[in-house]
C-alpha cells in the first residue's frame, strides 16, 4: 500500500498492458492529458497472451492490492489470438482466487484499444476507487 499521506490507503496496483493496443491507449491518455490516479504502475508486455496467470498469485503474494491486465479487443489481437487465450486463462484464475477467498475485484481484465485513452483512464480511476473500498490486501499481509 503506498500511503502518501499517513493513514490514507493508496492501493498499489500493477498493470500488464499489451504493447500494441493497451499500452498505446495508455500513452494516448497521456497525450490527451486525461488525469488518473498514480496508483497504477504499468508493465509492458508484447501481448496479453504473454501474461501467465500465475503472475497474479505472485503479485498478490507480494502484497500488491490489485492487478490489471489489458489487451486488444477480441479479434484485434496483433498476434491474432493472444487475447483469446489470455481470456480463458484469466477467467479461470479469477474464479480460483475468488474460491479461496480473495476478492476477485482485485484482478481486472479489460480490452483497451490504441484509441481508447479515455477508457484506460476511466478503468484506472474505477479500479482505484474500487480497491480503495476493498482496502489493502489482507490475505497475504505478513509479506516478509
Amino acid at each position, binding site marked *: *500500500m*503506498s500511503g*502518501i499521506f499517513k493513514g490514507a490507503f493508496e492501493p*498499489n496496483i*500493477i498493470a500488464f498492458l499489451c504493447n*500494441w*493496443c493497451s*499500452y*498505446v*491507449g*495508455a*500513452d*494516448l*491518455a*497521456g*497525450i*490527451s*492529458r*486525461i*488525469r*488518473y*490516479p*498514480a496508483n497504477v*504502475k*504499468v*508493465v*509492458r*508486455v*508484447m*501481448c496479453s*497472451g*504473454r*501474461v*501467465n*496467470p500465475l*503472475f497474479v498469485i*505472485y*503479485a498478490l503474494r*507480494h*502484497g*500488491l492490492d490489485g492487478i490489471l491486465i489489458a489487451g*486488444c*479487443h477480441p479479434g*484485434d489481437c*496483433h*498476434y*491474432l*489470438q*493472444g487475447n483469446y*487465450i*489470455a481470456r480463458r*486463462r484469466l477467467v479461470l484464475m479469477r474464479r480460483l482466487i475468488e474460491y479461496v477467498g480473495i476478492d476477485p475485484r482485485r484482478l481486472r481484465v479489460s480490452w483497451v*484499444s*490504441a*484509441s481508447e*485513452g*479515455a477508457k484506460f*483512464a476511466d478503468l484506472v480511476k474505477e479500479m482505484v476507487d474500487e480497491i480503495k473500498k476493498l482496502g489493502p490486501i489482507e490475505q497475504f499481509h505478513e*509479506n516478509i
Partner: protein
Amino acid sequence: MKIGVYVCHCGTNIAANIDVVKVVGYAATLPYVVVSRDYQYMCSDPGQELIKKDIYEHKLDRIVVASCSPAMHEPTFQKVLEEAGLNRYCLEMVNIREQCSWVHMNREEATRKTMVLVAGAAARAALLWPLTAREVNVTPTALVIGGGISGIQTALDIADNGFRVYLVEKEPSIGGRMAQLDKTFPTLDCSACILTPKMVDVSRHPLIELMTYAEVVDVQGYVGNFKVKVKKKPRYIDTAKCTGCGLCAEACILRGKILNEFDVGTSKRSAVYLPFPQAVPLKYTVDKDNCMFIRYGVCGKYPACKKVCSSEAIDFNQKEEFVELNVGAIVVAAGYDVFDPKIKPELGYGLYRNVITGLELERLCSASGPTHGKIKVDGKEPRAVLFIHCVGSRDAQVGNEYCSRVCCMYTAKHAYLIKEKLPNTKVTVCYIDMRASGKGYEEFYKKVQLEGVQYRRVNVAEVYQKGEKLVARGEDTLLGEPCEIESDLIVLAVGLTPKKNAKDTSVLLRIPQGSDGFFLEVHPKLRPLETTSSGVFLAGCCQGPKDIPESVAQASGAASKAVMLLSKGKVLVEPFTPQISEDICTGCGFCIEVCPYEAISFKDVNRYGYSVKAASVNEALCKGCGACSAACLSGAIQQNAFTDEQLLTVVKMLSGDT
C-alpha cells in the same frame, strides 16, 4: 553489473510534475546503479553524448532511461547504446511522461511513482541480456487507402519512385472530395482541370494498380510484411467490356429517380451510373440497392440496360471478390466527411429548401453540376445570399472543438463566385473569427471584400422563415447588439469531420484516433506522418482538416516515408523470440498449440541416452508474442526480454511501494 540511470526533464513536460532531482538521487541507491543523472532533453545530442560518455568511462552494462514513451524514443536510445558499443537490448525505458507526468498532477505522487518505476526498471535491466534483432525483407509494394487527392498524390509519388502501389478506393471512381469542388481558393482555378489529369496519370501508371469500388477488410502482419485482404464489391459491369458510352444509364427505367451522392443530392441519376463525367475509371456501376433487377429479380420483361449495351458489359451474376495483397507499407488517405448540419436544427437545414451547405453550393456553381453553374432558388435568382461560418466547427456543443481550417476560405470563394455570377445580389458573410493564414489567402479575402461582400461578425442563433424570405437572427458581436438579416439563400459553412467509419479503420490498422476522432500521428511536430503501428503512414484530412495544398504536401511526405521503408528493403524485427531449456521441457506441446504462427515444433533431443521430444523454435516464423511462455507449465520456454524472471522482478520491486 553496472547500470546507468538517466532521467529526462523533457523541458518542463516531465520536470514540472516530477521532482527529477529526487528521482536521480534515489536511483543512485539502487542495486548495481553506478551512475544516475538527469538532463533537460535526454534525446538531444548533448543528452545522448552524456550517456555514451558514461558508458565508456564507467563501463556501463545496462542503461535505464526514464523519459517519454518508448514508442517515442526507444529507437533513439537503442542507437545511442549501439554507438557506444553496447547491445541495443541492454536498454530499459521508463515511461514517465505519457504515463506519469502528463496524467498525474500531484507532484509528490508522480515523483513517488516514478521512483518505484525506476527501481523496477533497474532491477529488470540487470536481468536483460544482449539480443540480436533479426532482419526481414520488406515487400517492395505499398498500399494506399483512399483515392482522393491525397491518395492520388501518394500513389503517384510512390510509383514514380519505382515501387508498385495498390490504390484502394471504396467509391466507383477516384477523385474524392476535390472532384466535387468547382473552383479552388485562392487562385480560383477549376478544381476538375487540375485534378483530372492526375486521376488519369494514376489510371495510366504502369506501377499503380487501381482498385475502385473496393474496401480493405483485414490487415495482418507487421511493418514490411503486411497481409491485406481487399473486398471488391460487384459493379455488375464487366469493366473490361464497358466503354463508358452511357446508353445503359439513358435506358435505365429508374433514370432521374435516384439521388446523386456526387451532387450531394442536388440531382438525380439512374440505377446504373457514372458518378461524374470525368470519372476514373470511366466505367459504369450498377447501384445494387436501387436496381430493380437486383432487388426483385425482374426489371420489366428484360433489363433495359442489358438490352441497349451492345458490348454486353452488364453482368448481374457478379459476386463480391476478396483479394489478398502483400505489401510492405500502408498509407492511409481515407479523407473526411462534411459536418451534417441537421445536428444544428436551429439553422433550418433540411427544414427550408433554401438553406444549403457549402458543398451543395459547390455543385450548383459547377458548370458540370445539376444547374450547369446557374444559381437559382425556386427558379429565381437569389437577391440576397447569407453565409454562416463555423457550422459544426469550434463548437463544443456538437463535440467538435477544432477549427476546420478551410471554411473561412471556401466561403470567401463562394461569396466571390456568387458576386461574379450575380453582381447585384447582396452577399453577407456571418463570421466569428476570420482565418486566412495560407499563402495568398489574406489577399484573396481583401479582394472578396472589395467585391462588395459584406462581412459581419455575427453569431447566428437561429434561422426562420418570414414569407418568401429567410431570416437569420443573432448577435452582432462587434456592435454587441442583436440583429436580423434577411436573405433568399443561406449557405452553411459546414466543417470537416472524421469519416463515419474512422473507428473501423483505426481498429483495422491498429492506429489510434485522437480525441477529435482524426487519426493520431506519433508526434504532432516531429513525426506528423507516422502512426504508432510502424509501416502505416497518414496523408490528408484523415489526420485532421487541411486544404488542398497541405493535403498534397503531406501526401508527398507520406509517400517519401513509405518509399524510405520500401527502398531500404529490410526491416529489423524485434528478437523477442523464445528460448527453450531442453532439459526442463516436458514435451507437452502446449507452446506448439498456442503459437499462432506454427513457429514451434517438436524435435528429438537426447536426455541421458533417451530420445525425448522437446520444443524447438523457428525464429523466422516467430513474431514474438510470448503466448508460449505463458502456456508453458514447466517454465521451459522463456520469451527473450520478457522472461518470467524479468517480469516478476518488476512485480517484486513495485510491490515494495509500501
